[in-house]
């Protein structure tokens, strides 16, 4: 019995690791390549923004390709996470589906952001104003849609906390941590209200707190997934 | 038979009296801070005292209302460390700005 089921657990574990690797690739794309970490200042003039895009066009485009590819690699990670959630809430599948759908919802804006940045860098002889509009659009897409992330994290928190078996799939504190990161992810949705300050798209609260919260979320949930999968792999029966 | 009774033992007798006394202390500290603040428009030491009193109140809420008093030492220590650290950082940031 266990001999047949082991290969697919191994595949899920690989997907979990791929998720971490994907985050690394996205980070390489954003920072050393695009120089968008921290994000550009929303208060820059059109001329300054255009100058940045013209001087670093290749970096932005290649970094964007990293973001695009890595975002796709992240989807199997979320599927592996969803399979753990399915175990917790079996026979229901409500939060499994909720997690899957909000994960996709959360990453589509990232892909669109990448395309907008790349489009802005595509024709350097375009007018400054148009480049800045594409830049604005890109960063609003990049930081703004944080609420799908909130619902996504709650979709993990709820089944973890509702899991009442003697050996829970994920430790209970992971559920509480997901609630915490879900709360911290919310201020991102406010970026369209501010051109500067801590709630703007490069601000201490809308960007940095959310970024750190997401990093913590990723590492803790990866660790919990890995633990659960290792237990599944070594279990004598399913 | 009642797990809650075990906690009642651990918390010490007359819990109702205890939380009522704590509540009265909190109200008093609030009114005191309120009054000080109204007269502290340009007195930075008084404002600092108000901030410290706020953290003392916060600590009281944590230790007495949240019952950290009977919690394992690690949890209690984490909370106390937060209280001291956060208070110190906010005080430092407050004194950062030049006097008006």
């Amino acid at each position: 019995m266990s001999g047949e089921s082991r290969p697919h657990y191994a595949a899920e574990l690989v997907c979990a690791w791929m998720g971490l690797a994907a985050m690394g690739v996205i980070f390489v794309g954003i920072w050393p390549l695009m120089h968008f970490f921290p994000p550009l200042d929303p208060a820059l003039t059109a001329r300054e923004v255009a100058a940045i895009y013209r001087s670093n066009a290749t970096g932005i485009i290649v970094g964007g390709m990293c973001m695009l590819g890595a975002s796709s690699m992240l989807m199997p990670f979320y599927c592996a996470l969803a399979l753990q959630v399915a175990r917790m809430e079996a026979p229901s599948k409500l939060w499994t589906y909720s997690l899957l759908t909000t994960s996709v919802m959360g990453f589509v804006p990232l892909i669109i952001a990448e395309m907008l940045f790349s489009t802005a860098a595509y024709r350097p002889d375009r007018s400054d104003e148009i480049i800045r509009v594409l830049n604005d659009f890109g960063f609003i897409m990049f930081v703004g849609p944080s609420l799908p992330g909130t619902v996504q994290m709650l979709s993990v928190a709820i089944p973890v906390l509702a899991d009442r078996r003697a050996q829970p799939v994920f430790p209970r504190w992971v559920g509480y941590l997901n609630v915490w990161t879900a709360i911290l992810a919310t201020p991102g949705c406010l970026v369209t209200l501010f051109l500067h300050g801590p709630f703007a798209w490069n601000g201490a609260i809308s960007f940095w707190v959310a970024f750190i919260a997401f990093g913590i979320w990723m590492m803790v949930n990866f660790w919990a997934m890995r633990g659960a999968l290792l237990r599944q792999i070594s279990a004598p029966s399913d | 038979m009642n797990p809650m009774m075990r906690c009642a033992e651990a918390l010490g007798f007359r819990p109702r009296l205890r939380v009522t006394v704590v509540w009265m202390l909190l109200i008093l500290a609030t009114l005191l801070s309120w009054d000080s603040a109204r007269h502290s428009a340009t007195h930075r030491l008084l404002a600092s005292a108000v901030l410290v009193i706020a953290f003392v109140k916060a600590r009281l809420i944590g230790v007495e209302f949240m019952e950290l008093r009977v919690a394992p030492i690690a949890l209690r220590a984490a909370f106390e460390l937060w209280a001291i650290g956060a208070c110190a950082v906010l005080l430092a940031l407050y004194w950062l700005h030049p006097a008006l």
Partner: protein
Amino acid sequence: MDAAGPAARTRTHVPGEPGLWVLILGDLLAFSAFFGVFMYHRAQRPALYAASQTMLGAAFGLFNTLLLLTSSWFVALAVAAARSGTRPRVLRLLLAAIGCGAAFVASKALEWGSRIAQGITLNTDEFFTFYYMLTGFHLVHVLIGIAVLGYLFNRSRRPEPGPGYAAVMEGGAAFWHLVDLLWVLLFAVLYLVK
């Protein structure tokens, strides 16, 4: 079966459950960071912040603080009542605490409403951005807290509260106390410290 008496007094007890404290301590850290960002920005423009602060409804702030402190008192009494098994008392106290929470929300609506009527909105200046954002973020916590108290009320109404009732009462109460604690700090940082 259950050890009572002196032995129990030396045992420690995690209020609620250990995982909950990840959330509570995490929230304390997060709000402290928000306050820190506020104080930092305030140090850059002290005159603006001082001037804007005078336009706050300080009486509202005081009323809110006294309200939440009292609601925490009710919740602490409710937990004590649950331990001694007096169910009607638990229900009355929880209801009173929920009432305080509702009054807080109403008061906040009035406070914001009267600021907005004076033309003070989110982007009026940096101070008021922080004011609306911080009190708004706290308000979300109050709403969640009211829902938690509502759950405690429903759970306490059952003829047989079921297993884990003790932890649920303590945990829910701890979250409400957190809401109170955060407001105490917010009141000092935004309204009182000049």
